[in-house]
């Protein structure tokens, strides 16, 4: 799906009116099928950007164009149909604890299912092979019939990502997919996402805290800082200096940057900062 942001500003609905908008005057073009990673320190507006693209948040200024048209000009029913083509995976996996994994994964397909088919699928899962295949990409095939509350945090996060594989979406918006994963699982999960998106011709926008993972797997890197675009470059042109400037005063979040980057300050190597929406 082709994206065109034109001077977009937005604030979270719950934010105080006096607070600065989370995203300010942002312009960004993404071609269909492109894959890009959004990096930047905490509070840079990465999640807000994804919510704007998912039509979950209405821009207060500027325009979001998806496939060249403004989704907010659509009647509500058409907008909801369009949302079915956008898949937003929030950072905290949105899984009811008492649900089984197979149901949680198949829920990704709901926008493409009739009401009757989706209710029937609660009695007998409609497409077990597809759910199995999606989980297998994240090395979770053996958890197919487990309950969500029996899974670890990292497993839940990967179940949330596996849901994307079944969504009838043209655009994947993945928020911090690796926040609960160890390095090996991270690489595997990113690889599964990137490959899955490429195979199905899906546009992929992911926010990432792991700069090294972003540089290694994504051809295009967007740096956000204070709600504005810091840079928008091919991955091989993102220099350590740019990263240092992007993360100035947030150096501890730059863990795992390319080796040439300045070493993080001597302070205790903090774990990657996790922050909720």
């Amino acid at each position, binding site marked *: 799906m082709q994206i065109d942001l034109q001077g977009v500003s937005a604030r979270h*609905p719950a934010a105080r009116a006096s607070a600065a908008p989370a995203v300010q005057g942002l312009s960004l073009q993404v071609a269909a099928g492109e894959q890009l990673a959004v990096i930047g320190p905490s509070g840079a507006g990465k999640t807000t950007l994804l919510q704007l693209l*998912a*039509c*979950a*948040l*209405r821009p207060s200024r500027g325009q979001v164009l998806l496939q060249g048209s403004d989704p907010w000009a659509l009647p*509500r029913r058409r907008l*909801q*149909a*369009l*949302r*079915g*083509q*956008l*898949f*937003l995976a*929030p950072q*905290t996996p*949105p*899984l*009811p*604890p*008492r*649900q089984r994994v197979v*149901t949680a994964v198949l*829920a*990704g397909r*709901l*926008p493409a*299912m009739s*009401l009757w088919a*989706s*209710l029937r699928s*609660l009695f007998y899962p409609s497409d077990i092979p597809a759910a199995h295949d999606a989980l297998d990409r994240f090395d979770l095939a053996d958890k197919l019939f487990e309950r969500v509350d029996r899974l670890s945090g990292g497993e839940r996060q990967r179940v949330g990502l596996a849901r994307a594989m079944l*969504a009838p*979406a043209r655009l994947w918006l993945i928020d911090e997919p690796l926040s609960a994963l160890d390095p090996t699982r991270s690489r595997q999960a990113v690889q599964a996402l990137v490959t899955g998106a490429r195979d199905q011709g899906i546009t992929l926008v992911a926010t990432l805290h792991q700069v090294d993972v972003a540089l290694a797997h994504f051809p295009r890197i967007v740096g956000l800082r204070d709600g504005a675009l810091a840079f928008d470059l091919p991955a091989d042109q993102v220099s350590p200096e740019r990263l240092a400037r992007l993360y100035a005063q947030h150096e501890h979040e730059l863990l795992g940057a390319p080796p040439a980057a300045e070493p993080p300050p001597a302070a205790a190597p903090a774990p990657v900062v996790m922050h909720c929406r």
Partner: protein
Amino acid sequence: MSTLRAPPIAARDPAWAGRVLWWSAALVLLWPLAVATEFRPWVLFEPESLRVTARFVGSFFPPAIQGEFLALVARETWRTVAIATAGMTLALVLAVPLSLLSCSALSVSALAGDMARGPFWLRQLVRWLLVVLRSVPELVWALVFVRVVGLGPTAGVLAIALTYGGMLGKVYGEILESGELQPTQTLLRNGSGRVQALAYGLLPQNAAELMSYTVYRWECAIRSSAVLGFVGAGGLGQQMDNSMKMFNGAEVATMLLVFIALVALADRISGWLRRALG
């Protein structure tokens, strides 16, 4: 002494004055309420009252266990359970659609900012309807229906259905809105329909609470059908009314024991369902 002056220790807890104020305000407010309700508990312990109470309670023993009477009680118990169950079923038919209409967690327009005006007013309207349904006591509905459909269980069923429909609709809506909403909202944001989001997000999140509240209300409906029996809506309550009018404490005691058994049963069912769903 250190060179840095520590802030002076407050002489008193600053929240103290407010606490005293609110407690005294509550007591001052309670006083007229006690006067208005003629609340004089010591009357209970005057010798004359004690004698009346002792005679009434004493007549409960031993409970009546004649075979013929027990058969009657069994039949009426079955009828009471039937009234409560049928009333609850009708109440559910009313409450489920109304609570889904009034539940803001399933609003698509509220996903991005404020709810749209049309759906907002629809929700308010449904809420008012629920208020009207449950603010009329089931006793009053029963008196109305006894006049319309005559003496008998039908009046009780309809009365329970209307009042409990209002209560269930309100509380279901509140249970659905009070849980973790993120799974449901994510489904809606990703383009699911409302009923789909309900089935895949809200219900698995809240099934145990909804179930336990429903069973509790069924228990209340059993009790309530006893009261409705007093105005002629059939069931155990009507028998109890008859026995009380005849000052037959033994029969009243048997029927009270049946009620205790029914409530205990509801409690066990509820616990079992919660374990199964939790």
